[in-house]
Structure formats: C-alpha cells, structure tokens
C-alpha cells in the first residue's frame, strides 16, 4: 500500500483511542510555494504517522515512540531507520523517544535512553537551549531532535539539579544545500553550482551539562555549564578537481563539529501580570571559524484575556569570525521575536514575527488551527520570509509558502 493511502486509512479509522497508554497522530500536510526554485515544484506534501507508548513499570516510567514519514520533497535518507539521527537526511522511520526513568529517591530520578531536552527560560530564543540539535529540513518548523543521553535530576527544598551526559553527538540536520530551504546567497557562487554533501559520521562523544535551579519568591534562578561537541556543524566547502566533470562547478561540502564550553545564567520573575525572563551565556571555543560568543536575551510575557503576547530580544556581544548565517543557532542574532498566541472557542491562532536586527531580514508567520472535534484538527497558515537575502531568513524568500494540514490524534 502506498504510504499516502496508508495515512488516509489511518486518518479515517473510526477508533478514538487504541489502548490505555497509547497516543499519537496521523497527519497530512501540504505546502504551496509562491515560486519555483531550481527545478523544485510549486507544491510539496508530508505525511506523518506518530505513535507513542507510555507504561508505568512499578515506580519506573517507560516511554517509546515511533514516527513514520513520507515526504515528496526534500529528499529523505535511503536508510530506513537512523536511530541516532546522525545521517544527512531525514529517515522515513525514526524513534523520537525510547527512555526509562528510574526513581532513586522520592525527588531524585535517573533517566536513560533517547529523549528530548528543554532548557532555558526565554521563549523564542534561549542560549541554553538554542545549541541543542534541530532538524531544519523544514526551516520554519523549529523541530528539536532527541538525544541519546543519561540524565540525573532531583530536587531538595527549593533547589533542583540536572546532570546530563550525552555520549553520542546528534548533529543538526540541514536541508539539502542549494535547495529552496537552504539556498546560497545570489552572487556568492557561480550560477548553477552544485553541492556534493559528504555524509561523514559526526564525532561519537557528545557533551556533558550541569544545570542548577532555585526558586525564591517571585524569582526562578538558574546557572548551567556544559562542555563537549557542539551539535551545529561548521560547513567546509572545497573544490575537488575530480568532481568537475560537467559544465557547472561542483563543490564538496564536509561538516566539522568543534568542541565548545559554555556557562550561563537564567532568571525569571513574576511582576504583576508580567513574566520577565532573561539569560546570559558565555561560550568558548578554540575553533577559528566558530569563535567565542557572549549571548544575552530578555523577554517579557503578558496575558490579555485568552491571548498571550511574548516579546524577546536576543543578541551576541561578540562578532563571529565567519558569516553568522553559517553558525545556525546564532545566525539571526541580534534579533527581536514577537509572538501572539490566542485561544478561541473553536481552536487557536498565532502570529509570529522574527526580525534580524542587523540585516533587516525576518519572518512573518501566521497559523490558524480549527478543532473540528477533539481528535480532528485542521491547520492553515503561511510563512513569509522577507528582507535581505544575506540574512538567514531573507535568504529563504524562495520558500514563501502556504501550509495546510489535517491531523487526527488518538
């Protein structure tokens, strides 16, 4: 059965829940682009089937999930299952979660397996969180990748800790270079330049991190430190004479993963109807292309009825040694992020404005979700990158699109 037919069947199945402890969804998503780009079509489709199993085993918690996908574009990995997400392209099958949590004491836990981390305080951009690997195959989705890791966490009174060991590097996954989702700025290379991306293995060791958190009155405070391999690659372009067999140049693209050490502080405070959040991080690397960074963020959040306004300002006090768009998580800095989320009786909608303050590029994003029932949801929206194509968002102007999705959850 073709994958799309399988998804349609799953969407139309009458059951509302498979069993206690099982949840998931089937989703069909379509993209309509405003322009063709380098032979890519006006439209694309993604189908996703996601299933999650959660089980209590005495005092322990076991969770496993599997995601199956079918993409018309961009290309997917020829390898069906990539259990650590270390390959260049998105695999048709993935295991987003596979972990066991064992309580060591009433407020102390040990978790190991594959799970996602979420750090930091500021929404929109957090230096504590931004370095964690993303899959930006869809550059507007901000999809975080899970990690194989061991985490020890606990709480005593108002103090909490998290110690994380990530033995395997899960790298950022990028769209095919030269595609509409990862274009090269016009004029940077001869027209028609092709890229040969090298699927070499990222380094095996990952990173270690320690996070300490405290709550005192209106204040939530935190400090963290981490050391190890940075999951975002440094791209290295080279002209291999052996590849120059056609009329257009072919560039070989390799990936390098420098080590980086970082320390940071995070704070949030309730002030009347506002929540103020801030972070600062100092990042050190001996790498010639990555350099050091001193990143700060400030955000303010306020609820208005059934809506929430969030404004975040983020910046890096140290200019990077290379074009910042090549540093991915730091590409947009300094940036202003404004988001409005509104809940309605029929569903929800949101508007997001990401604005690069240096190059003046940005992204306007709108989304409306209509709850047909508690298990059926229809979402429509659009992504409108704008501005200078030298900025990371402005460069995506070929990817301006409308999105429509239907999801059936259970």
């Amino acid at each position, binding site marked *: 059965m073709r994958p799309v037919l399988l998804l349609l069947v799953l969407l139309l199945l009458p059951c509302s829940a498979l069993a206690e402890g099982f949840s998931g969804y089937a989703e069909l998503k379509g993209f309509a682009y405003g322009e063709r780009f380098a032979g890519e079509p006006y439209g694309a489709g993604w189908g996703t089937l996601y299933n999650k199993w959660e089980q209590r085993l005495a005092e322990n*918690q076991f969770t496993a999930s599997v995601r199956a996908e079918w993409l018309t574009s961009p290309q997917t990995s020829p390898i069906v299952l990539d259990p650590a997400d270390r390959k260049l392209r998105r695999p048709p099958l993935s295991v987003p979660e596979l972990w066991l*949590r064992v309580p060591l004491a009433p*407020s102390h836990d040990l978790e190991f397996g594959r799970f996602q*981390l979420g750090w930091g305080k500021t929404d929109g951009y957090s230096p504590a969180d931004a370095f964690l690997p993303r899959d930006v195959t869809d550059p507007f989705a901000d999809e975080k990748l899970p990690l194989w890791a061991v985490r020890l966490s606990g*709480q005593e009174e108002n103090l909490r800790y998290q110690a994380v060991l990530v033995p395997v590097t899960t790298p950022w996954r990028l769209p095919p270079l030269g595609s509409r989702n990862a274009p090269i700025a016009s004029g940077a290379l001869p027209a028609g330049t092709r890229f040969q991306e090298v699927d070499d293995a990222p380094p095996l060791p990952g990173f270690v991190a320690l996070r300490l958190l405290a709550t005192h009155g209106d204040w939530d405070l935190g400090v963290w430190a981490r050391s190890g391999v940075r999951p975002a690659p440094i791209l290295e372009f080279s002209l291999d004479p052996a590849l120059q067999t056609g009329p257009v140049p072919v560039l070989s693209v390799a990936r390098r993963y420098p080590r980086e050490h970082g320390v940071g502080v995070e704070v949030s405070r*309730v002030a009347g*109807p506002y929540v103020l959040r801030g972070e600062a991080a100092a990042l050190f690397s001996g790498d010639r292309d990555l350099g050091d960074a001193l990143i700060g963020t400030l955000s303010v959040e306020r609820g208005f009825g059934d809506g929430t306004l969030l404004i975040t300002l983020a910046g890096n006090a140290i200019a990077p040694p290379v074009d910042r768009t090549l540093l991915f998580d730091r590409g947009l800095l300094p940036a202003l992020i404004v988001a409005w989320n509104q809940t309605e009786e029929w569903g929800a909608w949101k508007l997001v404005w990401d604005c690069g303050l240096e190059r003046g590029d940005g992204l306007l994003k709108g989304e409306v979700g209509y709850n047909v029932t*508690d298990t059926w949801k229809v979402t429509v929206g659009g992504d409108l990158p704008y501005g200078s194509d030298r900025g990371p968002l402005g460069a995506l102007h070929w990817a301006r699109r409308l999105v429509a999705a239907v999801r059936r959850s259970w």
Partner: protein
Amino acid sequence: MTRKGFKPLLLLLAAALLLPLPSTPTFAGTDARSLLKESESRHRTKTQQYSGDLTVVNKEGKIRKKGWNSYRQGYAGDSKNLIRFTDPPEVKGVGFLSLPRPGSDNPDQWLYLPSMKRERRIAPQDRDASFVGTDFNYEDMEEFDHEKYKVSLQGEETVGGQPCWVITAIPLEKGSKSIYQKLILYLRKDILYLVREDLIRKGDKEPAKRLILSDIKNVEGHYVAARMEMTDLKKGSHTTVTLKQISFNRPQPTSRFTLQNLTREGGD
C-alpha cells in the same frame, strides 16, 4: 474582595462546596455569615484527589471534552495543587502546579508543556479569561472565601426538591477586583452544601452564568458534588464537569507537589 488566585478546575469549585453533617442542624439566630462559617469548618479536608471529565457544549451543540487528574494538599490559601491533563491527546501530559506563598494572595504557579520539555512560571491570570476554553473563567476557579464578601441571607428556596438557604455575596473589592457585582448562593439546608450559584456581572441585573452542583455523594465521610454544570446564560453554552475516583484525606507524597514531579513526563 481578595481571592486566593487561580486554582485548578473543579478542585476549587469542590472547595467551594460547603460540606456538612448528615443531619439538619438548627441555627439559632441564623445569619449568612454563620451559615457560611459553619459550612467552611465542616468542609475542610487535608487532601483531595480525583479524576475529572469536562464537557463543553457550545450554543451550536458542538462538543469538546477534556480529562485530568487533580491532587490537593492543604486547604484554601494554604493548599498545594497539581493538575495533569489526560485528554484530549493534544493536551495530554500538560501539568499545572500551584504552591501557596506565605503573605501573598497569589500562589506561585508553573505550567509544564510536554512540547517544550520544561516548566514555565506563569503570572496570575486575567480573571475574565476563559479557563482552558470552558465556560469557567479564572475567577470562577478561585476559592470562595466568604470573608471577602458582604453576605446577607435573602430567604429560603427549593432547588432540585431540596430546601435551601439563599445568600447574596457582594465582593468587598479589596485586593483583586472581581468581575462580578453579586453572587447568589443556594445552600442546601440539610447538609449546608452549595447546590447552585448565580453569577451577576458588573453592570448587569440578571445572572450571566449559573453553576449547578448535583449528584452529591458522601465519599469517605465528606459530601461532594460529582457533577457540576456551568451555563453561560448569554452565550447559550455550558460546561459539565464530572468527578470520579474521588478520595479525601489520603496522605499525599511530599514529592508530588514539586517542580521535579511537575516535569516528570508520564508521572502524576
């Protein structure tokens, strides 16, 4: 009037219930304040936990459902609360933790969103905002503290076949501003239990919303309404809440009301 801040769904409505002795007492020199005080003293429980189902029906008849587990330790302004949504799938695992802060009307509140994998401190909510898309707003979720109202006994009326005291409660407007001009409480005379509440908004003469509490059960020596229905009389929608697996005064693990527990996926 001051309130105790946002509290989880129906936990607080349940807390507003005036739990009673099974026999009908005689109240010499009956007045609203003494009735409410007596009800409150009977109502207090050290802990409470239940599973709740919530159904929202809008005026077109469209139905939405939600499910959650609720845990409380302590009472009124000193209570710790944890809520974990179980249904629908889109909100499964979302957690809400509220801890009292000495000397403050507003408790500390955090929300855990599984999609973000971290907890977020949240500010006291807009009191007129809808609570998770229901006909309850955040003020409706707050605990009813009669000391923050001017109360008066209006008379007696029969509700659902049961004789009731009718008490009006006007916010004293100390601290947080109420969105209501007046509440009309219907207290069952035999068990001093709230069975109906009419909520009149400022500037209105007629109730904007009506809360009906029914299916009253005696669970472990405490009365509790297993069904509550809030009707928005202007919008024509209503929200029904049913409580299951209710228990009182069972010891709660001290680790339950912690941020560590809030962030445990698949946990309580």
